[in-house]
């Protein structure tokens, strides 16, 4: 068994060897390196053909028309393009947007930017299981609401939102629905023929494709319009300019093709391992599962180990690569905003570890992880004054802490 064990598949995934193999054919002098926008020679045509094929693979996984796929540099750009693109295009119709406090930063920061531009944004509170209550969503919708943006699967706690029901609600009111599917594509079946989703964001590197690559689904029937955010040569039917990175696109296409072929079997295997991990941690005191256990993606287990601080736990678990909160905020000292939004106390939010399992996780790795976590949590609790107090029966929430920051 190779150490460290990688259990951070929601942060990123390795490129599948089959994907890397395919990508390598679109780079060097002996491959298809041409600019796909070059209309005058075979180098350009071959690149364009490869891109069309990849577009077909991505569309197939989500049952969409290839013409509905717009290539971007990643899910962050897709989210920016979808939300700003719709907000700017439809602003005469209304300037209200509804989203949720547990969305990815790319959605939240984009919404904040729109607020600075004069838009009005409602940030819904999720329930304690991490899901949005549809009644609360309905109550937040207004005549001037133009867009609802909600994620399919949460990156930290892995909960799966019922986008089918949300789509039915927004469609009936003529409101557009954008779904960030960076964490769900390839893990949860998506059928855009039946889902009333208007825009959907995808990332390649979350499903064994390359970093720096993503896509935005933009529905054609009924037609959704967006204002481009990147101007230039009019690539991607004017919605996103910039030379298409052939190898990156081919990589994403191949990753999506493989996901389509192997998703069912892979999910079953990963779910088995995830459950094994959770069962293995049972019996430990004061451990709390974050997020709903049932409406949850197979590879995710987010657990708070009360009275142990997450960063020191990550340090103690140096044989396994896991994260505390999301990778994008882990350099800061803030507790996970997702866990705070679902009502976790600061202590529990600070004590969380996200284990995310994937294509290359083995039973042996899971068993090693269980043992390591049990040992290290026990060791850190020996060091923890909060654990002492808990054991003495002191209610920590009742203490007046002299917090100075």
């Amino acid at each position: 068994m190779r150490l460290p064990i990688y259990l951070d598949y929601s942060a990123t995934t390795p490129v599948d060897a089959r994907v890397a193999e395919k990508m390598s054919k679109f780079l060097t002098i002996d491959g298809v390196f041409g600019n796909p926008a070059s209309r005058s020679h075979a180098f350009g045509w071959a690149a364009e053909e490869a891109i069309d094929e990849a577009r077909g693979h991505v569309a197939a996984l989500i049952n969409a028309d290839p013409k509905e796929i717009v290539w971007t540099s990643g899910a962050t750009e897709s989210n920016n393009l979808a939300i700003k693109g719709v907000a700017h295009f439809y602003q005469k119709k209304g300037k209200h947007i509804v989203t949720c406090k547990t969305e990815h930063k790319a959605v939240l920061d984009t919404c904040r930017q729109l607020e600075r531009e004069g838009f009005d944004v409602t940030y819904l509170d999720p329930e304690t299981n991490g899901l949005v209550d549809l009644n609360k969503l309905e109550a937040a919708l207004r005549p001037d609401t133009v867009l609802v943006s909600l994620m399919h699967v949460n990156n930290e706690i892995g909960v799966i939102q019922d986008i089918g029901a949300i789509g039915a609600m927004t469609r009936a009111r003529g409101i557009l629905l954008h779904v960030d599917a960076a964490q769900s594509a390839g893990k949860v079946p998506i059928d855009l023929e039946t889902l009333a989703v208007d825009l959907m964001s995808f990332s390649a590197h979350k499903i064994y494709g390359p970093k720096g690559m993503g896509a935005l689904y933009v529905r054609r029937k009924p037609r959704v319009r967006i204002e481009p955010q990147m101007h230039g040569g009019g690539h991607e039917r004017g919605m996103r300019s910039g030379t298409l990175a052939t190898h990156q696109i081919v990589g994403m296409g191949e990753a999506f093709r493989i996901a389509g072929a192997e998703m069912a079997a892979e999910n079953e295997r990963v779910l088995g391992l995830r459950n094994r991990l959770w069962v293995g941690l049972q019996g430990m005191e004061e451990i709390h599962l974050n997020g709903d256990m049932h409406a949850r993606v197979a590879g995710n287990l987010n657990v708070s180990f009360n009275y142990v601080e997450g960063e020191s736990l990550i340090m103690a678990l140096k044989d396994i690569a896991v994260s505390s909160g999301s990778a994008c905020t882990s350099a800061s000292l803030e507790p996970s905003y997702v866990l705070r939004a679902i009502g976790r106390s600061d202590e529990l939010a600070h004590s969380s570890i996200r284990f995310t399992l994937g294509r290359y996780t083995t039973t042996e790795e899971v068993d090693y992880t269980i043992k390591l976590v049990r040992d290290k949590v026990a060791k850190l609790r020996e060091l923890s004054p909060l654990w002492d107090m808990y054991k003495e029966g002191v209610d920590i929430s009742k203490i007046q802490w002299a917090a100075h920051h």
Partner: protein
Amino acid sequence: MVYLDHNASTPLDARVLEAMQPYLLANFANASALYREGRVARAAIDQAREQVAAFVGAHPSQVVFTSGGTEANNLALKGAVLGMDLTHVAVSGIEHSSVLQAAKALQRRGVTVTQLPVEHTGQVDVTTASGHLTSGQWVTLMWVNNETGVIQEVSAMAAAAREVGAFVHCDAVQAAGKLRIDFNTSGAHVLTLSAHKINGPKGVGAMVFDRALDIEPLLHGGGHEHGLRAGTENVAGIVGFGAAAALAAAELEARVAHVSALRTLLEARLAATLPGITVFGQQAPRICNTSFIAVPDVHGETLLTALDAEGFAVGSGSACESKTGQPSHVLMAMGVAPSLAEGALRISLGHATTLTEIESFTVILAKVIAQFRDMAAVRLA
């Protein structure tokens, strides 16, 4: 197949691919992750940032990685205009579409956009252009034009702009790797770059900027790249850009010498075999690798197809505009007659281009043109 369209894109250098590969497979971690693997990815990005900075004479902290030249140009224009509440933008008529379209988008938001005139030579005359400059204006001038290869007087323009209190953005996508660039002495406030024009990977670029400027990000979320460009870093791509920049910096003089010699030969042969040929921008200083030509009465599109069938890949101008079928906006801005512009053919060489390739190209081009003329003669008869 002989590839003579290096201004559209270049093949990835095998050494660059070698540098990139570990970051796709073994060292694949997210650079924001706290564990060791994440730090390995972060260190690789830091190194690439140093390489790109050294390549253009900048400090690593001045480099922001983007998804390419188009994004870098959009970020420079829109980011600076929005970040500093600028109301006036001036761009030359020969800029890349990513600059022109970004300026148009700003115009729709109420920003005044001035077009700087271009001489017949393909150069923007700094003295003339200076008359259009105003304080607090954003001026974008490309270092080298992608179609003609004409080198602009960037330093003089920057000096003129600074004198009136304007900001200068220089699109150096086509200059990088063909000229020695020094950001800090150029006088430009912002420089934009693309990896795939210097034998690096597609999908990566950079904005190099004076940190005193207040630039508003285009992509929000996650605070990557000092808050200027959100999104999980394309580690392999960035590493590739760094490696390509380091190679280009180390081999620049040798590459330029090789390519210049080939271009001189190419143009001499063309002049000898194709009387009446026009080489656009020939009166102005040009970069070493580009010949943008037109042959009277021969339509460019037809010529390209025939050359492709013979195994030669050349361009008709900007790859980004090749779908529209419009004559080159660069040639239009230079005042070239549309009939001549429609026949334009861009031959752009790379450092791996060989003497044999150029020799056979000139022979084939003459042959193809002779065939066209024969056919035309038959038709006339």
